[in-house]
């Protein structure tokens, strides 16, 4: 089985978010980047398939050279080979088209992408990629078993779970549940050394359509001062809500 894990290079969850260029660009200054957590759950599951079922695991990302530490971490964790499409990931459609080209050339049986990246939270890539590649698709996947050509996946749905049976080739939009958080791997020293010798292929992007443009980013308005009203003083609370906050 040949697996492709799609990785997004995203800011660490504790990063301070700021914008530049008149609020049109994310300010990467001082930001530490990591593997998108939803992708990391997928990568860890792929490692399981590699170790238990002899799968080959490739990872791919769309990004500039600055994303290489993130890809190399995946190699250090155990992926066999990496592909970087040398382009700025402008929007979900663009990324999916680039990845579809890799899928087409690589003859993958299983493509694991994160349900969404935690930076722009578009959530588009896995679905578009499945469609462009003509593969089956399971989104918000929290469990995946493969036997021969058959796949059994569990999806998270509102208020419960849905068990699905499908066949390869398959794209999944993965998330926490594919593996537990405690299963996530820390690259060991030998893995880090080996990563140096593994292939990291850089390919140029195919011309692809960019469907959207970022016009402006806005941060949530900062919270104002809190006024505490005594529980016995309902009249004042109503007065404040009506006259000051103007919400009732």
């Amino acid at each position, binding site marked *: 089985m040949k697996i492709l894990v799609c990785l997004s290079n995203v800011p660490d969850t504790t990063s301070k978010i700021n914008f530049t260029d008149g609020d049109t660009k994310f300010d990467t200054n*001082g930001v530490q980047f990591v593997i998108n957590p939803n992708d990391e759950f997928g990568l860890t599951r792929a490692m399981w398939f590699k170790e238990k079922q002899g799968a080959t695991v490739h990872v791919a990302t769309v990004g500039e050279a600055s994303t290489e*530490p993130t890809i190399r*971490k995946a190699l250090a964790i155990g992926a066999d080979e990496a592909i970087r499409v040398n382009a700025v990931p402008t929007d979900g459609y663009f990324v999916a088209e680039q990845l579809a080209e890799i899928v087409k050339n690589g003859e993958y049986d299983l493509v694991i992408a994160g349900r969404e990246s935690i930076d722009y939270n578009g959530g588009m890539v896995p679905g578009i990629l499945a469609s462009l590649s003509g593969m089956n698709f399971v989104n918000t996947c929290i469990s995946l078993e493969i036997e021969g050509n058959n796949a059994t996946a569990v999806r998270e749905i509102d208020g419960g779970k849905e068990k699905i049976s499908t066949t390869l080739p398959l794209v999944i939009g993965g998330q926490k549940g594919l593996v537990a958080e405690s299963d996530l791997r820390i690259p060991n*020293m*030998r893995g880090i050394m080996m*990563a*140096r010798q593994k292939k990291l292929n850089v390919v140029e992007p195919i011309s692809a359509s960019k469907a959207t443009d970022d016009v402006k980013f806005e941060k949530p308005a900062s919270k104002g001062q809190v006024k505490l009203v005594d529980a016995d003083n309902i009249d004042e609370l109503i007065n404040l809500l009506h006259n000051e906050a103007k919400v009732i």
Partner: protein
Amino acid sequence: MSTETTTKEILRGGQFLVKETNCEDVFTPEDFSEEQKMMRDSVIEFNDREIVANRDRFEAKDYALTEEVMTKAGEMGFLGVAVPEAYGGLGMGFISTMIVCEYISSGSGSFSTAFGAHTGIGTMPITLYGTEAQKQKYVPKLATGEWFGAYCLTEPGAGSDANSGKTTATLSEDGKSYKINGQKMWISNAGFCKVFIVFARIEKDKNITGFIVENDPSNGITLGEEEHKLGIRASSTRQVFFNDTVVPVENMLSERGNGFKIAMNALNIGRIKLAAACLDSQRRITTNSLRYATERKQFKTAIVDFGAIKSKLAEMATSLYAGESASYRAAKNIEDRIAMRMAAGNSHQEAELKGVEEYAIECSILKVAVSEDVQNCSDEGIQIFGGMGFSEETPMEAAWRDARIARIYEGTNEINRMLSVGLLIKKAMKGHVDLLGPATAVGNELMDIPSFDTPDYSELFAEEKEMIAKLKKVFLMVAGSAVQKYGPALDEHQMLLLAASNILIEIYMAESAILRTEKNVKRFGEAAQKEQISMSKLYLYNAVDIIIKNGKEAIVSMAEGDEQRMMLMGLKRFTKYANQPNVVELRNTIAEKLKAENKYCF
């Protein structure tokens, strides 16, 4: 992995004092390779997951946890970073070894001690002095954590005077084995180790001899109870008793009588690694204190906005910055020297031994400086936390207790202070470092009329670099005069040696911080290094004060009359700022940046 090695002449140990170092020639934490950063991040994740998350268990003396996490560290490859690949390790360079040691040591002093004792003094004596057979037999198991090592040097009556141990090794009649008898004390990892490095005296030898002894209770080895200690509570520390313990002759380490040398060389490496081990602790303490100060409100104000707290945070960050700068500067020197020796045909073993030995002065300086900085930092950390800092609920009190041992083990700070100056003088005698010429020049300068020109200090660090050059003159004046006056008897003047050492330490640390910043300003621009510039200036300002105090003490203790007056004048001249730095402003700049980033961010 070895970072890029320059073909330029590498400064010898101690030469920083008499030769100018270019900022381009120092290695800084900003020079870590992508791979080294990945290793660092890996260790940080491991530390957070396995050590920091289990802080309470370590504090509750859970010795089994220490062993369990050590085993996991072995699986991750952290124990074999410095071990050559031929013996199951990863054969990485000295800087990578320092990085792993630094970032794995900050979660708990208990683990830090177990890790340091095993990878350093527990394993290194065999990799550095073992025969091929000994290395093949023991090192692969030690490198992977299948076996753990411990180092048995100290005895009830032999602490700092390590060569005075009473443990004996007696050759059997058939000449095939030694019988070891004696009592060893404060043995880290004793409770779970498989291999002891034991130092014992054969007959009436002047020097002790090293042996590799496998832990086997049926071979006359018994352990004392776990010691109950102020800090590093889950580090297994026991007495080890050897009662007619039979050790085959092939387990002798190096040659008969070579034990003291092994013990001292293992400690050289241990010292610089101990400095590294204190750095990330200091970083965590600083960040934790900063975050607490940001959340804690008094008088309707976050206490981080009070000058009293800002001052502390700025000083905590500054000493850490200097510690990082000096530790990686020395580590790179060591790495380069090892590479140079290997290129010249030395075996890895020889190259590593000589490489580290060359910088024994710097290793001692770092051990003293960083262990004291982490202690002060944790003390101020408790102060920032106030009453909460005194409570076991917050990590401050454990950090403070754990830091305390660093000033004692791997040679007390007093021994290391005297050693740093003693070694430097020895190097001068051997002609490795020319102290006499520069010291004479300083002597002549003292008789001259000082120049009244006003130098141009407009360039960044112009005045600071001149100050460093002058501070070196203070050391040369004090040490030169001390050697002249007392000759070989200088050893007996410990208070004078301590004062000289304090001067030496401050010079190395202050210079390292300035060189690091200067290098980074050239790469990243002055605006991006504003706070680093402030820290370098603040460190130097503090260093000058320490040097004035110690200089005075030393001069008055050994010179009288005109000579004393002349030297005190020299001290004044060599420590004089043309433009006094505004330290309040410097501290504010540093503190504001820390506040904005909400972590130690340099």
